[in-house]
């Protein structure tokens, strides 16, 4: 049951083989047993989870059904949940309880999913290692001295260690895909605008996108079906017909054109990562897919552009955390200005402060044109690179990250090196394109490697199809970390 795909769990619930209460208790017990060490969760409320499970069982008894009815799901602690703390991994919001559910949370609730708990994350989603959380670092189930990636590291570790059948994450520059890659699970960042950002605490509004994290492409399709949909409360939410992301899972691969960006292979990428990704691509070729070398010439500008735009937006988005209405307020202060300074100095961690400083700088008078506007122009060039590439191919494939999970503390003194870990995920975010990570093997240390699949806007069903076909032929996604045995 702990390692079963969502379709099996759903069938078991529908067939009366297990109740939602039993299933939820199973995962709660496992969290109890293993999470002390992993630290994947910030908040677990067993009573509330079991209450929701009972409600799901009652709904089923009343004749309802659905692929997520009664399934326990963990939410990244960036999604507001009514009546339960939503911390965003920060001291600033350590005691914040939202009076509303995020759209995503609401969608899962409507589908009858059980809220298992809120997962750990880099503070305000700023980080690639889950070391910047106020609630302590998350450990990688595959190697507990290593990081799980970030910022959705808690969700990734929870799914990898089978503490939850599925989880939600958010991705601004790779925060779903990179931790999925580093923990050997699947994660998908949808096309910008598919998943409402309402109730999702903003980091960089023009890039933030919620998405599913699970154990297989088929599971992601089920989760994505629940998460997407127009929401009038988010002005960037796309008004388009609801689609079934599972519809093409079994479509054939023959004739699929896979673009391989020259810039994503070779120098700077670990040899093991490069080898596993190439092996996966060879499998696609064996299935009748055609590979074509493409070029994304502005790839090298993506990280610098991202580290202008994302901090710029963040510096403004995080201004609301001022200690006036909610959140952390310093205990003592001499005047208003002092209250602002102390509250924010105490409430935010180092990485958040670094990005607020950078963002404030690039928006300042006299620097705006040179940094912010210039970065916006390059962002458009990067989008154009992809638009040109998709003239030649249906999907783009490459590594998710240049390396597998690195040791905790290895990069904390060098933020730029840490930022470069997102070099292959950031361009997709800047272009608003969907990207996903699926496991494609292990490196020599036994750490998982992720294959990145990038699609054109709204190509999620096609991406999931390609991933699902691969997973029918491989078992990387079924492997359970030795440190967290079933």
């Amino acid at each position, binding site marked *: 049951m702990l390692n079963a795909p969502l379709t099996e769990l759903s069938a078991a619930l529908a067939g009366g083989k297990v109740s939602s209460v039993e299933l939820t208790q199973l995962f709660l017990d496992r969290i109890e047993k293993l999470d002390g060490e992993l630290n994947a969760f910030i908040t677990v409320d067993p009573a509330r989870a079991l209450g929701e499970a009972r409600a799901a069982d009652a709904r089923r008894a009343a004749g309802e059904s659905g692929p997520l009815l009664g399934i326990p799901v963990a939410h990244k602690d960036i999604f507001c949940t009514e009546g339960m703390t939503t911390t965003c991994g920060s001291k600033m919001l350590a005691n914040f309880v939202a009076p*509303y559910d995020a759209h995503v949370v609401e969608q899962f609730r409507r589908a009858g999913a059980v809220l298992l708990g809120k997962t750990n994350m880099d503070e305000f989603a700023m980080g690639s290692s889950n070391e910047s959380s106020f609630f302590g670092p998350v450990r990688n189930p595959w190697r507990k001295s290593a990081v799980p990636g970030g910022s959705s590291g808690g969700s990734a570790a929870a799914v990898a260690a089978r503490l939850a059948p599925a989880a939600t994450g958010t991705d601004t520059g790779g925060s779903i895909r990179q931790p999925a890659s580093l923990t050997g699970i699947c994660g998908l960042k949808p096309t910008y605008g598919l998943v409402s950002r309402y109730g999702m*605490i903003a980091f960089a*509004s023009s890039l933030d996108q919620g998405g599913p994290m699970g154990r297989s492409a088929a599971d992601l399709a089920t989760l994505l079906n629940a998460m997407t949909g127009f929401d009038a*409360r988010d*002005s*960037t939410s796309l008004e388009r017909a609801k689609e079934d992301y599972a519809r093409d899972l079994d479509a054939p691969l023959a004739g699929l054109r896979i673009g391989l960006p020259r810039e994503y292979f070779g120098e700077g990428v670990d040899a093991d990562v490069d080898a596993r990704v190439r092996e996966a691509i060879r499998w696609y070729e064996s299935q009748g897919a055609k590979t074509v070398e493409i070029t994304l010439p502005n790839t090298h500008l993506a990280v610098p552009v991202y580290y202008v735009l994302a901090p710029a937006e963040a510096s*403004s988005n995080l201004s609301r955390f001022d200690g*006036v209405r909610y959140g952390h307020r310093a205990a003592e202060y001499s005047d208003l200005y002092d209250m*602002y300074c102390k509250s924010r100095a105490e409430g935010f961690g180092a990485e958040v402060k670094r990005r607020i400083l950078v963002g*404030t700088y690039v928006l300042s008078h006299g620097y705006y044109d040179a940094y912010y506007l210039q970065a916006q122009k390059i962002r458009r060039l990067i989008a154009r690179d992809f638009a040109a590439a998709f003239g030649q191919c249906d999907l783009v494939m490459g590594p998710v990250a240049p390396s597998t999970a690195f040791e905790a503390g290895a990069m904390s003194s060098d933020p730029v090196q840490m930022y470069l870990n997102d070099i292959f995920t950031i361009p997709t975010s800047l272009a608003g394109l969907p990207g996903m990570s699926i496991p494609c093997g292990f490196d020599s240390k036994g750490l998982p490697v992720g294959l990145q699949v990038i699609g054109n806007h709204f190509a999620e069903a096609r991406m999931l199809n390609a991933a699902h076909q691969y997973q029918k032929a491989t078992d990387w996604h079924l492997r359970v970390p030795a440190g967290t045995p079933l």
Partner: protein
Amino acid sequence: MTWEIVVGLETHTQLLTESKIFSGASTAFGAAPNTQASAVDIALPGVLPVLNAKAVEFAIRLGLAIGATIAPRSVFARKNYFYPDLPKGYQISQYELPVVQNGSLKIATEGGEKTIRILRAHLEEDAGKSLHEDFKGMSGIDLNRAGTPLLEIVTEPDMRGAKEAVAYARALHTLVRWIGICDGNMQEGSFRCDANVSVRRPGEPLGTRCEIKNLNSFRFMEQAIEYEARRQVELIEDGGKVVQETRLYDPDRNETRSMRSKEDAQDYRYFPDPDLLPLVIAAAEVERVRATLPELPQAKKERFVGQFGLTPYDAELLTGARESADYFESLVRESGAEAKLCANWQNGELAAALNRDGLEIARSPVPAPSLGALVKRIADGTISGKIAKEVFEAMWRGEGSPDAIIEARGLKQISDSGAIEKLVDEVLAANAKQVEDYRAGKEKAFNSLVGQVMKATKGKANPGQVNEILKKKLAG
């Protein structure tokens, strides 16, 4: 040597939408603190702004009414600064690309009509209020006003002196109420003006300006601009220099004083708000709104002069508010009388009575059809203008229709020439002295004799006939 006073105005008009510009919370004035602040207004984590379509429609209305360009694409930007009554730490406003661009408004000045160019009008949200009274050692924050839609209307520095500035502000005040986008309540802050004032020798380039805030009545605006211009002139004449700054007007002392200098000005770090898509307005939408616009004050004024032969002054008074102009047109229609007579009554007796009782014309105890019935009786000779004033007062007190009052009080004019002749004979016989004076060339004596006849009839004699008959008898 003379100085020229140059003024530009920035006016924040609060739009009459039912809900806020980016949230569904009510905009009604006067609710208990923080009871009209939604999660969006309080800026809780994760909430997002959604633009109120009505606010956009109101901006288009204003744009069309001032003959401006409605930008097919405009952009909302964030103006970043920290203040306790600014919940998000930024204000959503329009910066580089406002929704309304390049319009104008005509004003009446001593030298005739003048066109004031309006550079732009942009949509933005209001902040909350900081309350410093009632909280010892602390400040209270009321976020009811946070997120209230504002349209900020900015002129070019086209006004010369305080009187023109006030004329523009009044014209704009009339216009925004006329087109139904703002209630114009200056006390409640629905219509707030800031004045940019500078002085120069005629023909020279613009001088350094100061921005004057807190002008919450037209009278204060005039006083503040006059004070500020005087201050600048004195400063320059004493060899000093005007420093660009923001100054606050203190009506109690009738002076302006420095709030902050340009050097203290904050860097607002404007950038396009990524939570809101650019505002795209289709030409069809502009046309749809255009079709809902009423005849505008300027057009109506010109028509009142052209069609009714009114003086520009009368037309200006009558078109001071849409309700007033509507009243007038109804009055003309109902009375069937000459427009000039109607205008005299509306601008005279009615205006005086409304003013005396502090009433808006829409709440007049004598509505247009009633006043029309009264004016009709003047026009058809049933009563004189003088008697009509008495009838009007009775109507004002709610004593009934003009015909009923005339009947009940027996105020019907005496137009029977036989009766009047008899009276005139009596008066002439009893006032030999005045008759003699008149014949000796004292014109005044004539008026006295008319007065006697009118008095004898309690004012009911037809004054025209009395005049005529008297003249005839005296000549004879």
